[in-house]
């Protein structure tokens, strides 16, 4: 039964330094680490993003469309430019939209189990549940919710067939707000999906599916974060207290199952918003 793994156990938010066992070498392969999620995932098709280094910043940008920018070749009377580049861009977007729609699993968003009600406001989702006089509100934003190191996997994935391409999973930070009827403030948990959990097939460390980063009291219903409220950071927290906080959330329906479903929902919302953005972009480029 007993084969020594000899690896670093800790590494999550609270426990990094205390548990590192470094005296021995790590084995080449460690068991199972990196929880495959059952969240809805989709194959990678965002070549546009990858060309531009995750879509956020890039030192190199192809200048395919710049040469004719000042020489519009088509005009529709809208007062905007219509270049050959715009046409190529629009055609490219058509293909991209078609591809994305092909891999979209459902037009409608997945439901969260446990009586949660969903409310969308652009890229922000708000899910609400009432439990015996308490109101639990969970909010997250799908913007910037795809882990950046997804890119590395995508590069590796280029060697593989389309079926084996890595899948995009949205893992947003999320905020849980618990409000009791009799109180004027809410207990607010700032939660996240630890990156190592999401980004590897195998690795050296294990993280919980989700983790609490900070806890504080905030005035009920205030959208602004009150910086003057004491904020409990879980980095150096007593582990027993952390476990009680996790149990507190679990009692209110925020557990691993919830986190998994939230990932699934966020992935679907993100994809939906991505397609919507591409369509809007195409409309803008085409000017219709």
């Amino acid at each position, binding site marked *: *039964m*007993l*084969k*020594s*793994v*000899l*690896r670093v*156990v*800790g590494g*999550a938010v609270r*426990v990094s330094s*205390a*548990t*590192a*066992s*470094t*005296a*021995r070498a790590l084995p080449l*392969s460690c*068991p*199972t680490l990196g*929880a495959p999620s059952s969240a809805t995932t989709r194959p990678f098709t965002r070549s546009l993003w990858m060309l531009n280094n995750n879509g956020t910043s890039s030192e190199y940008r192809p200048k395919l469309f710049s040469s004719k920018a000042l020489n519009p070749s088509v005009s529709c009377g809208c007062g905007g430019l219509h270049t050959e580049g715009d046409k190529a861009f629009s055609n490219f977007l058509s293909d991209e939209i078609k591809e994305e729609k092909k891999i979209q699993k459902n037009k409608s968003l997945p439901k969260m189990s446990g009586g949660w009600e969903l409310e969308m406001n652009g890229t922000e989702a708000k899910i609400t549940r009432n439990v015996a006089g308490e109101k639990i509100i969970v909010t997250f934003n799908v913007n910037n919710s795809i882990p950046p190191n997804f890119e590395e996997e995508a590069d590796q994935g280029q060697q593989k067939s389309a079926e084996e391409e890595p899948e995009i999973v949205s893992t947003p930070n999320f905020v849980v707000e618990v409000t009791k009827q009799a109180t004027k403030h809410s207990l607010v948990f700032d939660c996240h999906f630890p990156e190592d959990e999401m980004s590897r097939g195998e690795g050296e460390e*294990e*993280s*919980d*599916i989700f983790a609490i980063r900070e806890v504080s009291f905030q005035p009920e219903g205030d959208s602004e974060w009150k910086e003057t409220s004491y904020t409990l950071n879980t980095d150096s927290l007593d*582990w*027993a207290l952390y*476990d*009680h906080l*996790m*149990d507190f959330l*679990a009692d209110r329906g925020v*557990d*691993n*199952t919830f*986190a*998994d479903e939230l990932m699934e929902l966020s992935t679907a919302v993100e994809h939906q918003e991505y397609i919507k953005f591409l369509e809007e972009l195409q409309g803008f480029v085409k000017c219709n």
Partner: protein
Amino acid sequence: MGVVLRNLQKVVSLRRARLRKDIDTLRHILGVHKFDMGIICVDNRRIQQINNMYRKKNVPTDVLSFPFYEDLRPGKLPCPIHRDELNLGDIFLGVEFVMKQCQEDSLDLHGALTITMAHGICHLLGYRHETEEEWTEMLQREEYILSEYNRLTGSHLQPLMKRCTQDR
């Protein structure tokens, strides 16, 4: 120093605080509270993968221990020189497997997890059950741990190995 607790599964609803309290009680009974230890709760699929990878047994199981010290004499505590050697290793708890056993035998889940963790810690401390002698030695240790646990908590837990005796 302490216990790193991870819950990587969603099949079984666990009480983390309870689990930590139980493991802390076991560590105190064994006098190993100075040592770090990892407890990783996994589902059947995951523990089956690990079991297959390290023991070539492609079936789920209740517990797999990965000792930091591989050649401990049973009952002898390690004598680490450096702080980062104050580590006993990791225990993968097959919580889904244990839960199903509990359902079959109408047992309390957290009680069964405590028994399973006691078994896992014994492995981290060098106990084995490959020969009859080893088996007896480990069973005696588990009996001691759980009798102390029962005395401290008012429980009535029985060693895991007692239940497994018929399987051998």
